[in-house]
């Protein structure tokens, strides 16, 4: 699904003064493509992903994900939409420490009352692809950073979301592992024809990107990406 960002404003309270993050920002992030978002630290990239996924709301303007105008839904509708259509991958993995690998992966499906068999089969396929099926009963703490991030990727993809958001997924990993993770995310997204929006500083990312956006002084501008038509 296309992501249509229309004239959004967003600012935060910063001990009394307001800090403007976005001012009249608009963009179209095309469906089925890999969009990479770049920009200086603190410029508002994570905030943008939060707005797209609906865990935060713009002050003005709206964001449309496919046919759904996420900015105008109520909290429950947004949550359910997120659960069904969006997968999220974070810099700090954000796995639930008291759940095993497999439980982390199937948690949301269970909360959504998806039949256990279906989601388990899907989980198994993905975990096997990630080379983590043997470790399905281990707790996240016992895994390395790269392994944890692979679990997080599986979790993001397990319910077949249309849209995958990744916020500096390699930012906390060494270069070699990072490159592998990047490849995994990109190939999976390509293969399944997902829309992937990824925030990253990694130069490798450019190689995978269909389109690169830069965030600066409150707006979102597409950059020419000649590397990959």
């Amino acid at each position: 699904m296309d992501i249509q960002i229309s004239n959004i404003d967003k600012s935060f309270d910063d001990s009394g003064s307001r800090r403007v993050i976005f001012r009249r920002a608009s963009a179209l992030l095309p469906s089925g493509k890999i969009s990479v978002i770049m920009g200086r630290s603190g410029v508002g990239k994570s905030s943008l992903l939060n707005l797209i996924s609906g865990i935060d709301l713009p002050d003005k303007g709206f964001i449309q994900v496919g046919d759904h105008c996420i900015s105008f839904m109520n909290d429950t509708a947004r949550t359910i939409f997120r659960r069904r259509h969006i997968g999220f991958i974070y810099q700090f993995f954000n796995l639930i420490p008291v759940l095993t690998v497999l439980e982390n992966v199937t948690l949301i499906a269970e909360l959504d009352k998806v039949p256990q068999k279906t989601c388990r089969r899907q989980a198994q396929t993905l975990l096997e692809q990630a080379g983590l099926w043997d470790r399905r009963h281990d707790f996240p703490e016992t895994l390395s950073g790269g392994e944890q991030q692979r679990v997080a990727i599986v979790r993001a993809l397990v319910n077949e979301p249309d849209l995958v958001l990744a916020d500096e997924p390699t930012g906390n990993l060494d270069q070699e592992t990072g490159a592998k993770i990047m490849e995994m995310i990109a190939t999976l997204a390509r293969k399944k024809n997902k829309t992937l929006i990824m925030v990253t500083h990694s130069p490798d990312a450019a190689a995978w990107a269909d389109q690169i956006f830069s965030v600066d002084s409150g707006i979102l501008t597409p950059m020419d990406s000649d590397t990959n038509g």
Partner: protein
Amino acid sequence: MGNRPLIRFCLRHSRRHLVRTLLLVFGIAMGVAGVVAIDIAKTSVGKSFELSTRALVSRSTHQIAGTGLEIPQQVFTDIRTDLGIHRSAPVISRHVKVSELGDRILTLLGVDPFSETHFRNLHLSPGEQDLSGVMTGSKGVFISRSHARQYNLDIGSPLHIFLGSRKTAVTIAGFLDSENSATGRMLEGLVVTDISLAQEILEMEDHITRIDLILDQDAAAEKIREHLGEGLFLVETDQQNTAVRGLSYSFETSLTAFSMLALFMGIFLIYNTVSFSVTRRHRLHGILRAIGATRANIFFTVMAEVMVYAVIGSVFGVLLGILLGKGAVQAVVATVSEMYFTLTVSQTHISGFTIAKGLLAGILAAFVSGFFPALSAAGTRPVSLMHRTVSEKGFNRLVPGLFICGLFILAAAALLMRTATPHAGYDFTALFMIFFGSALLTPLLIRVIVRVLLSAGMGSLGMMVKMALRNITRSLRQTSVLMASLMVVTSVFIGIEVMTGSFRLSIIQWVDDHIGGDIHVSSTDPLTQSLDTDLVEKIRQLPRVESLSAYNIHPVFSRASGKVHLFSYRSDQSVKRWSWTAAPKEELDALLENGWIFVSEIFAQRHHVIPRQGAAVTLETQKGPVPFQVAGIFQDFFMGGGRAVVSPETMARFWGHDDITSLQLFLASDTPAEPVMETIRQMLDPEDMIEIRSGNAIKQSILAVFDNTFIITSALQALTAIVALTGILNAVMALLLERTREIGILRACGTLTGQVKQLLLHECFFYGLISGIMAIPLGTALSWVLIHIINQRSFGWTYEMVLIPGVFFQAIALSSAAALAAGIFPALAAGRTHIPTALHME
């Protein structure tokens, strides 16, 4: 790096996390408040007992009393004139009711103003000549000035004094003044008058209650003993005092138990909040170390901050405790005064000691609670990636050791309880050790219980249940403290419930055994208690009366315990439960006929009767002290300092009573009591002072007295519960704050707010459930200790422990509900979590 900038930095950090800082201060404050409040309640009640005792006992060293609680006034004259003992005073003291003073029971004190000066500080106004003026026939009495003001009475106002239903009209001749408000309250319990007027009111003719003496030589005491005739004896006042003190002692005992519990909860609470707030900063300390702070820097910074909040919290706690304590005193003294009319003091007594104790408890507990976390904080490696789980892992290694430690402490407590010296101090130390020891067992128990619950299929109830249960063991270091305190509170609930429940059942049993009659007829005439023998015969002849138990009760004076009651039965229909007998049960009646006696447990305890062959007790008789062989000791709940049963012949021979004062009627089955009671009423003259009550009514009134006694316990239990619940609320909130990031993740992944709330409430429910489960064995042990050790030693009553399953369910429901209630607010807050912020939390 100096400490100064670090401290400033940490204080700023605290300001940024205002909610947590407030929780810390509030936690310390509630802990201190609990300690202070109960202590105030305890000292105030203790103080009021002491004051009322002093008022009645005066400064005398000795007293002359008589077997029948009356002595001829002539004795006083003899002592003065023949023996020349001038520091002596005749006293009449008896409980009466005064209708104008709210129908309260007061002590009518008849004194001789000239002899009084050595004994009591009665400040009479206007002047003493008025008291002497009474002798001229104007029937004047003195009451406390504040009491008079309260009821709008003035000099010259008429009063009506009731003794039973005998009414005497008098007037207020003046007021009793006091030097301070404490004794002022104490005086409210008194009506003071001249000896002769007291004799008239009480129809004592030329008798008095006792003679107070101040003797400084043993020789003088010897001289008096030789002089005294039969039925009169000299006792040291201290001995008398012990009897009165016994009552207050048993109250203080139960209050001490509660103050122990409050102290324990307070320390728990403080430990919980302080250690929690320190460990939470682990990451921060790692960063500080990384940028060059030394171990000492970190340690002192942490301690300095903890102590700042400890002082603020303790001061705040003392103030809060004073407020709570005042409320508790009001509740406690109201009930105590209802039951023991001599107690009229209702002033809150706040000693510097109490305040110091509260402050010290707060500051010391905070110090100790902060010390070890501060040490470990100082040991933080200078790596910023330190996770909280590292300290959890350290704690997990300690768990088996703590368990073993706990077992040792429990064993030591058991040993301490078994020590031969029945000293309350030991019992309470042991109680404290039981709480502490079992608290140390909890981490391992929690782990085991969680594992059992998970493998018993709780996990299949869904991911939420699984997460909730695993979260408990994951933060075991904090959850175990929380659950240990919840367990202790719940076990106290169980202990008290089982104790009162068992006690009540025994009382009911006892009432059925001893007051089994359908109708009771007894004399209410305080002067001549005998029932007319014709009346007794007529009642015996009534058609529906199947059998009749006739007996007499006479109060006599005992050197060892003051007033005791002697019973002699014409035909004894009561069922006694023996705790010891000198011979097979069938032979006991024969022994009684031969002049042996039966004594109640309390009587035995007060008279130091050791249950073995040859046990004997010396009683004051009209013929002087006589040793009696004890045939058996029976369980008994007779209110009034113990009793003894003698045969009618013994009663007549040694105390000169061969009358009947009470009857119990047993009716043919299915006969309603009311018509028979009406028939008996018809037989009476209107002026007869005879009370006819149904067995049921008596049973109800006895149970009412019993239930009233335990209102105090309930009031204190409620107070402890308030402290405990705030502690639990505090701990739950602190714990759930820790879950913020996790909640952020869950929400970001698509968990609904309702599901997040559910998760937290599940977790709280399990805190409560598991604590409740753990409280069952502890509560049972506690009730055993309360019944068989503490209660027996302080009250002298024994009764069987009856375990009521309902209490256990109640306890589990209670602790689950309490934990759930504590979770409501955090759950609501969690529903409003701002996801991006939560995700960015350290």
